[in-house]
C-alpha cells in the first residue's frame, strides 16, 4: 500500500518516460533506447496501480493471469506479423485501445464508488461528462479502426462507400451524442449511457466507410489521435496523470501525422474525412482521350541494360511494392547495381503506402541502410542529375499533372520529379490509373519505359539480367 500522493508522483514519472520514448524516435540511433523508456514507464504505471490498491486476494491472481494471457497473444502477434501487414496491425491495435477505454468507462459507470466518483445514480457531474466523452471517443475509435482494419486487410473493398445524406446522418448522430450526454447528466439513466455508446459505435463505422484505400494514412493517423483523446478522457475520470499525459501525447501525435499526410496530398483534412475521393468518374473523358497516346514498353533486359549504363539510380517505391512483397528482390537488385559502382538512393513520398513511414519500414526490413533513404524534399532536386528513376509500385505521387494541370484533382500535391531523370523505368501491372482515378502523364513521356509485370517478378528478372 502506498499513499495516493506517492502514486501520483510515480504516475508522473511514467508520463515523463513516455515523453522520452517519443523523443527517442527523433533518430534511429536513439529510438531503441526510447522504446525501453516506454516499457519502463508502463511497468511503473502498472506496479504502482497494484501497490496503491493493495488488493492481493484471489482477484489479483485473475488479473495476473489475464495480463499473461493478453501479453502472450500480443507477443505472438508482434513476432509473427509480416512487416507488410503493419498498417492493419496498427489499425487493429487502435481498436483494442478504443474498446478498452469503453470497458473502463462502463466499469466506472456501473461502480463509481471504486473510482471515488460518487455513487450509482449520483455520479459527480464532471466525472459523468468525462467518462461519457471517453466512452464515446473510445467507441468511435473501436468501430472505425475495425473498418480500417477490414479495408487494409482486404476483407472489405477499399472503395469508398457513399450514400445520399451520409454527411447529414453523421452530423445528426454527432449532435445526438451531445444531446444524450446532456440528458445523461440530468437523469443519470443507464439506458442513455448505453445509447451513447451504441450510437458512437455506429458513427465510427459511418465515418470510415466513405474513405478510400489510399487515404488510409490519414485515417490511421486520425484513429491514432482518437485513441489518445479517449485515453485522456478516461484519465480525467480516473484523475490519473499518467493517462492524461499519455492521452495528450498520443492525441497530438496522431493529429500531427494526419496533418502531415493531408499536406502531402494537398487536401484538407475535411475533404479526406468527408471521403468519396477517387470514386467519381468525371475524369473519364480525359482518360479516353489519352488512351490514344503511344506508350513505350520494355522488358527486364532493357531495364537491366539501362541501369547498368547509368551512374546514378533513384528508386521510388510505393504501395505496389508492399503488395508484391518486392522489397527483398529490390534490395538484391540494388546490391548488384552498387557492385557496378552505380550510386543508388531511395526517394519516399510521405503518402507512399498505407500508413506514415510504411515504405521506410519495408526497406529497413530488407536491410536497406536508412541513410540511403530520403524524403521528398531532400531528394527532389536530385532527379534532374540522375540517370534512371526506378518507380516500383508508386503512381499518383509521381504524376507531373499535379504540377501542370489546375483541373486535376491532385493539382498542387507535392510530387516526386521523376520525369526530370534522363530515363524513367515504371514497373506497373497495367496502364490503369492510380487511386486518384487519373491517368499518369508520365506513362506517355518519351523518356519513360513501362515495365508491365508484377513488381517482384520484374525485379527478380532484372536481377538475373544484371549478371
Amino acid at each position, binding site marked *: 500500500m502506498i499513499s495516493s500522493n506517492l502514486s501520483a508522483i510515480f504516475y508522473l514519472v511514467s508520463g515523463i518516460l513516455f515523453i522520452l520514448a517519443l523523443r527517442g524516435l527523433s533518430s534511429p540511433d536513439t529510438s531503441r533506447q526510447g522504446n525501453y523508456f516506454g516499457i519502463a514507464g508502463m511497468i511503473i504505471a502498472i506496479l504502482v496501480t*497494484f501497490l496503491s490498491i493493495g488488493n492481493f486476494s484471489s482477484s489479483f491472481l485473475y488479473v495476473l493471469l489475464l495480463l499473461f494471457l493478453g501479453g502472450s497473444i500480443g507477443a505472438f502477434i508482434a513476432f509473427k506479423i509480416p512487416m507488410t501487414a503493419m498498417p492493419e496491425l496498427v489499425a487493429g491495435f487502435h481498436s483494442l485501445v478504443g474498446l478498452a477505454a469503453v*470497458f473502463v468507462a462502463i466499469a466506472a459507470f456501473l*461502480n463509481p464508488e471504486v473510482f471515488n466518483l460518487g455513487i450509482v445514480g449520483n455520479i459527480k457531474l464532471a466525472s459523468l461528462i468525462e467518462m461519457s466523452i471517453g466512452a464515446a471517443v473510445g467507441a468511435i475509435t473501436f468501430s472505425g479502426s475495425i473498418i480500417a482494419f477490414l479495408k487494409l486487410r482486404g476483407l472489405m473493398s477499399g472503395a469508398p462507400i457513399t450514400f445520399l445524406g451520409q454527411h447529414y446522418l453523421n452530423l445528426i448522430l454527432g449532435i445526438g451524442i451531445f444531446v444524450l450526454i446532456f440528458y445523461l447528466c440530468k437523469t443519470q439513466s443507464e439506458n442513455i449511457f448505453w445509447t451513447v455508446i451504441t450510437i458512437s459505435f455506429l458513427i465510427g463505422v459511418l465515418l470510415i466507410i466513405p474513405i478510400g484505400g489510399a487515404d488510409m494514412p490519414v485515417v490511421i493517423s486520425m484513429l491514432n489521435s482518437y485513441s489518445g483523446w479517449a485515453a485522456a478522457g478516461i484519465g*480525467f475520470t480516473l484523475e490519473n496523470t499518467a493517462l492524461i499525459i499519455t*492521452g495528450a501525447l498520443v492525441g497530438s501525435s496522431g493529429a500531427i*501525422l494526419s496533418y502531415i499526410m493531408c499536406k502531402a496530398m494537398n487536401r484538407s483534412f475535411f475533404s479526406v474525412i468527408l471521403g468519396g475521393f477517387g470514386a467519381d468518374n468525371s475524369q473519364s473523358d480525359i482518360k479516353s482521350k489519352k488512351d490514344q497516346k503511344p506508350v513505350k514498353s520494355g522488358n527486364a533486359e532493357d531495364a537491366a541494360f539501362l541501369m547498368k549504363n547509368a551512374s546514378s539510380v533513384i528508386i521510388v517505391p510505393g504501395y505496389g511494392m508492399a503488395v508484391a512483397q518486392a522489397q527483398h528482390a529490390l534490395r538484391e537488385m540494388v546490391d548488384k547495381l552498387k557492385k557496378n559502382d552505380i550510386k543508388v538512393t531511395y526517394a519516399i513520398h510521405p503518402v507512399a503506402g498505407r500508413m*506514415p513511414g510504411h515504405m521506410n519500414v519495408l526497406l529497413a526490413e530488407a536491410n536497406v541502410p*536508412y541513410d540511403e533513404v530520403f524524403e521528398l524534399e531532400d531528394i527532389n532536386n536530385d532527379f534532374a542529375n540522375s540517370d534512371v528513376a526506378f518507380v516500383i509500385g508508386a503512381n499518383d505521387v509521381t504524376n507531373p499533372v499535379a504540377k501542370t494541370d489546375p483541373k486535376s484533382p491532385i493539382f498542387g500535391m507535392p510530387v516526386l520529379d521523376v520525369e526530370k531523370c534522363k530515363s524513367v523505368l515504371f514497373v506497373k501491372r497495367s496502364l490503369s490509373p492510380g487511386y486518384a482515378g487519373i491517368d499518369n502523364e508520365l506513362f506517355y513521356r518519351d523518356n519513360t519505359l513501362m515495365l508491365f509485370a508484377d513488381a517482384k517478378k520484374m525485379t527478380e528478372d532484372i536481377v538475373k539480367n544484371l549478371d
Partner: protein
Amino acid sequence: MEIDPFIFRFSIFILSIFVGYYVVWSVTPSLHTPLMSVTNAISSVIIVGAIIAALASTSENDFSSSSIFGYLAIILAAVNIFGGFLVTQRMLQMYKKKKDKK
C-alpha cells in the same frame, strides 16, 4: 477561493499537448510507423483504469459486473502493451546504418 483540482489536471493536459506537439514534430519521418505503434502501446496505459475496476471493488464478489469489464479491458490492453512495444522493438532493430551492415 480554492482552485478546483480539475483545473490542475486540465493544465497538465494542455501542457502535455504542447510537449507532444514539439516532440512529435522532431520525430524523423522514416520512423513514423514505429511512432504509431509506440503511441499505440503507451496509450494502453489505460490498463491502470482496468486494474482499478478489477481490483478496487469492495464487494466480496470477484465477478461483479464492473470488475468483469475491468478484466476484459485488462486482456485488451495487455495485448496492446506487449504487442505494441515488441513490434516497435522489432521494427527499430531493422533500422541500420550503412556501416553496420558489413
